[in-house]
């Protein structure tokens, strides 16, 4: 059985029900990517997996136990989260920000240990921000800042990492940089679950793809097994062609050029 599993979830904000009877298994050791159109419930699902949203029905299980019944700090040592829009305290340095990832390991009488120091140094090293340790985070570029936040989650030393649209505010070069980094973290043995907007990025990096629409899972599996023109049309309503990516061999979505049809129709 996989470590992170959701069963029969009914997810809702206030009155609005986002999903009903949703079941998900995150394969251990996978780089799982959730895709779908805006409002399909993918971020909501991630929030439920991260214990941030209490399901109206059903439950998320971590290591076989309902995640909401477990002590928060115990969960935080196994599941880390990079939220969509984390708040960077003004004037905080890179090292100090990354160090806050050690919160789940600290107690009243055990404030800061060599173990914490090691984890923070290793996390900064892993994402390549060791040189920036004493810089103020506000002054960094968007890509550097996102790497620093990844380092914070890494310092938490969790086997499972959840990433909510980690590339949304980055330019294309930094998107690839962050995703390459995620891919490496996955290869080092972590389980990653990410919500991504870009379907081509999802196909390129995911080992397990979950396609959602209207609060339901339409398909899941290896991108090369499930991504077809028909699926993209069904999930996003976008006519397209699927070709093999010349670089990675993964499916590449090429939207159909509807302008010709439109122009023809207007004449």
């Amino acid at each position: 059985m996989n470590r992170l599993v959701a069963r029969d979830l009914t997810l809702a904000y206030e009155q609005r029900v986002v999903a009903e009877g949703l079941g998900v298994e995150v394969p251990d050791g996978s780089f799982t990517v959730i895709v779908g159109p805006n409002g399909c419930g993918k971020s909501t699902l991630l929030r439920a997996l991260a214990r941030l949203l209490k399901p109206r029905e059903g439950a998320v299980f971590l290591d076989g136990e309902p995640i909401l019944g477990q002590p928060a700090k115990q969960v935080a040592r196994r599941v880390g989260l990079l939220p969509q829009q984390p708040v960077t305290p003004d004037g905080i340095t890179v090292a100090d920000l990354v160090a806050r990832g050690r919160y789940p390991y600290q107690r009243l009488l055990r404030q800061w240990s060599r173990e914490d120091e090691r984890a923070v140094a290793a996390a900064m090293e892993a994402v390549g921000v060791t040189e920036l340790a004493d810089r103020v985070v506000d002054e960094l570029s968007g890509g550097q800042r996102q790497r620093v936040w990844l380092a914070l989650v890494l310092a938490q030393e969790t086997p499972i990492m959840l990433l909510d649209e980690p590339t949304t505010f980055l330019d294309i070069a930094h998107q690839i940089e962050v995703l390459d980094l995620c891919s490496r973290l996955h290869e080092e043995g972590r389980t990653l679950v990410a919500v991504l907007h870009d379907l081509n990025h999802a196909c390129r990096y995911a080992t397990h793809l979950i396609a959602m629409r209207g609060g339901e899972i339409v398909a899941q599996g290896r991108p090369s097994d499930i991504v077809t023109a028909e699926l993209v049309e069904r999930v996003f309503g976008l006519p397209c062609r699927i070709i093999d990516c010349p670089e990675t061999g993964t499916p590449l979505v090429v939207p159909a050029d509807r302008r010709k049809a439109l122009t023809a129709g207007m004449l």
Partner: protein
Amino acid sequence: MSTPVREAPVRKEPVRAAAALGRAGGLLILAGALVAAMAASLAIGAENIPLGRVVDGLLHPDGSREALIVQDLRVPRTLLGVVVGASLGLAGALMQALTRNPLAEPGLLGVNGGAAFAVVLVIAFLDTRTSLVYVWAAFAGAAGAAVLVYAVGSYGRAGATPGRLVLAGAALNAVFSALTAGVMLLDPRTFDGFRFWQVGSLASRDLEVVAQLGPFMLAGAVLGLLLARPLNALALGEDAGRALGVSPARTRALGALAIVVLCGSATAAAGPIWFLGLAVPFMVRSLVGPDQRWVLPYSLLLAPVLLLAADIAGRVVARPGELETGIVTAFVGAPVFIWMVRRGKAPKQ
């Protein structure tokens, strides 16, 4: 020590260690400044008393005029300044951390308004001149107001978010000040008695006030200081904080409790002293950055230094009379505060 480090090179560690050492040194300097301010507060006044005679007066209470001044007037006043200042500084820092608003002020939780209303009721309807009755009335008023603010602010599904609490506090503060004004207008004598309480003063309170409110302030301070790490985690945003294992609801409830106890007892002891709780944490963050493990203790120590300095200044400028402490803090503090904001170095939160 030359223990070999096996993991990734920690080449930046000396810099961070040096920064931590610098901040610890700063705390020591602040503690020294507090002692100096206490000494000055004992020595300076309508009648200056040399420090040597102050010490004499404390060690050998010989009934001389100077010994009596030190014992009966300046010691209570100085101790009150220390505990009130420390409480307001810490309460302000907690308030700004909890609301993630650099301009939040502990009074926003309705504490000052509730205390003022309770005091004006006592002055108007109870025939008492005992300062301890005022103190407990103010404390009860502050606590009652805070409970009310929390009840109103947490009404509804969204619960007690910082924004809603501040809104509820602002609204109830307005209600309380209207009620207070109403009671005052009924009776000129009440107005007279109240306006002295209202400016905030360290003078003419006896040692009993410190003895009775001290334990509350101590408890509030311990609770507040213990919240430094959860507040640090919550400063990363609600989601990030929860993902790190913090319970925002519990942290906020405990934080609000600490603020009410600290600010309520400070207001009960000295009347409403505005500004200190707003400006001190702001100054502190521009000195030590956003880490609450430093911001909270720095605020705790810096605020009483400034409050004592303002109190001493108030005694000196209008000799042989004096200016109320609450007036001086705002008068001296405001320009400094404006200068700091304009300099732009002061970080938000």
